[in-house]
Structures are given as C-alpha cells and as structure tokens.
C-alpha cells in the first residue's frame, strides 16, 4: 500500500455558491477539520444515493467520485517539501476533459481546460489547503462564470498557469462526471490524500 487519494467533484446551484465561499473562508480561518470532514462526508453520502444538506439548505445537485492516485512527480515534490528542498506549495486546482486512465507516470492532465479568463482555482483564496493526522485535504470552488464543461479529470498543481507546474495527483471521474453550465451552476473539487489509508 501507499499514499491514497480520493477526490470528489460536486455540482451546486449557483445560488449556493456564496454559502460555499463563506464555508471555505471559515475553514481557512479556523482550520476546523470538522467542517472539512462534514463536507467530504456529505459528498460521500450523495455518492451513496442519500440527499445530504450542507448548512441549513445547501443541497448537492450531483457528486462524482474518483479513487485515483498521487503521481510520481508529486511524490518527488512531497519529499522535497519534507526535506526543505522545495518551498513551493500545492495551491492550484486544475480541471480537464480527458478520460484517459491515470498513471503514476503522468505529469499533467490529459486535456486540461482553462485559460486567461478561466484560470486554475487558487485554493488559498477559493477553497482550502489543510492537514489532519497523516492526511492532506484540498478543496477548490469554481464559480458560475467558469465556461460550461464536463469535468472528466482534475489535478492539484503548484503553479497557476495552464499546463504548467508539478502535478500532485490526477483523478478521472469515469462514472457520471458532473457537467457544469455557465451562469447556472458552480462546482467544487475536493481531494483527500492519506499517507496511511484506512482500508475498508
């Protein structure tokens, strides 16, 4: 066994986005792992065909789950961060339309989508970057102005520009990926990377 990654892509009505931004802001301010767990547990419940409510009335329209992996270049960077050889942090969440099965040798998304008007999401501003026990937790919120996309793949990077930087993980939502519609929905991508995973 080794480092295990689980990633959720969750679709929300755009009217719920202000609540999600405040939710993430609260996590960043308090580092409350209860809030992080609540969000990820709600995603899992939606995947399991329940109808979780976040806060008082925020419903998940759809959640897709990927059980993919931390890639080798990401592990190399993690080790450098532990030794102090790298001070660059994991800050950006990228999305794409590729559906190729992830491989440990991957260094980027298969078909990353974005550009100057649709950049990678800065998780230090629109999400969170947390740790708990032997796990890392990342989340990125994409607003309603993001162009329409079917989110087939996602990955965490250390730089913002499209197709650049070192990738930590790569996930492909092979079953029922979410489809975001500009000005109608927003979506959230949440990753949990566990160095000592609990086996089901």
């Amino acid at each position, binding site marked *: *066994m*080794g*480092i*295990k*990654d689980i990633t959720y892509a969750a679709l929300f009505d755009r009217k719920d986005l202000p609540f999600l931004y405040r939710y993430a802001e609260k996590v960043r301010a308090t580092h409350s792992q209860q809030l992080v767990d609540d969000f990820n547990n709600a995603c899992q419940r939606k995947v399991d065909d329940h109808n979780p409510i976040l806060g008082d009335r925020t419903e998940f329209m759809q959640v897709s789950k990927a*059980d*993919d*992996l*931390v*890639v*080798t270049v*990401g*592990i*190399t960077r*993690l*080790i*450098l*961060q*532990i*030794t*102090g*050889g790298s*001070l660059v*942090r*994991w800050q950006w969440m990228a999305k794409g339309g590729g559906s190729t099965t*992830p491989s*440990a040798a991957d260094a980027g998304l298969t078909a990353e989508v974005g550009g100057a008007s649709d950049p990678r999401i800065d998780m230090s501003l629109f999400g969170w*970057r*947390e*740790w*708990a*026990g*032997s*796990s*890392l937790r990342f989340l990125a919120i994409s607003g309603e102005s993001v162009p329409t996309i079917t989110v087939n793949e996602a990955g965490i990077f250390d730089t913002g520009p499209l197709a650049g930087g070192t990738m930590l*993980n790569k996930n492909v939502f092979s079953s029922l990926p979410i489809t975001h519609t500009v000005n109608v929905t927003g979506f959230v991508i949440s990753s949990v990377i566990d*160095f*000592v*995973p*609990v*086996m*089901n």
Partner: protein
Amino acid sequence: MLVLDDELERMKKNGPQEVTYASLFWAEDIPKIQKLFIEGKSEEVNEKCRRYYDDHKSDLNIIHVSKTEDLPTYPGLSYCMQLIIGTQTNRFKFAIAGTDNSQARPYQQGLLGEVTPRIDITLPGNGSITAGTTTLTLTGIFAASFPTAVIRESAFSTASPGGIYLNRNMFSSSPINHTSGVSGFTIQSVFTFAGVTTWE
C-alpha cells in the same frame, strides 16, 4: 502467534515503508566516511552498507551491518503534512541512537534508552538528507567518540533534545556493538512513498 495492535498493523501494511541500517566501521575509517559524505557520495556509502548486509564484498572496511524494517510514527507523518502545507519549517535533522530493545510502535515519540549526543546531520561530515524519486534517505554518522553502546534502537528527530520523531527502529537481530574510541557507525533510514489507486 504475535498479535499486532491495529495502529501498528495499519502503519506496517498501509503506511510509507521504512528500512534502517546500522553500519559499524573502525574508528580510523570514520574520517574517510565523513569525507565521502562531504563530497556528496553519501548514497554510494549507503549502497555499500546495504550490499554488505546482503553478503556482498565492499571496498569500505565495514565491520558489521544490522538491518531493521520498523516504523515511521504517526506524529512524524503528521509533522510531514505540516512541512508539506508549510505551517512548520524545522526539518528532521537529528540522528539518535539508543540501547533499548522494546518493540517499535507508531505512536512512540522517544527512544527508551537514548545515548547522547544526537547528531545534527545537516552539518558537513555528520550525515546527509537525500531525496530520491519516491524515497527519502536520512543518514547520521556517529563518530568514534560516541559513548560505548550496543545500538539496538534509532530514530530521527526535529530537535535536540526532544522534538518530533519521524521514526523508531529496533534492531532485534544482531545489533552493532560500538566501542568508544575503537569504532564509529552510521545510521541510515530509507523511507519509500508510493501512490496507490485501488484498495487491497
């Protein structure tokens, strides 16, 4: 039959894998070892120690090598998460040796029979920190002046004294027997991280 507790079993089966070698040298050979480390040839020395353990010949005058496959600790991994996120900056840089032969447990934060002093492996000639593609190798060189001891346990920590322990190892079989003024030794711990995509 030995029954492992749940957390020990979880770390051994699912966590990063760790192997530690304790290698004994004659006192007059320690300056040569230190020089090789200063020249950036630490992995060359470490590889020779590992091969010597496997009964290969070596051009280094190695007296004895002991090996153990024990544990990273949960607090140590938790600290790694903080180094990765960037909320901590102190590195694992102190090599520690001791004489106790209690079994290693993943929550242990200390050697039970520590022999001082600890070795700051970031100082020239004191050891090395090597980041590989998926491996992290920490090596400490204990000079001939280190007190006489049968080295049955070892660890790496962030501070001296105290600090966060990254690992704890116990050499249950054939530990090295260091004599002050006669011999010196190295402790090298190799951590292997790997990404996985499926549950076992």
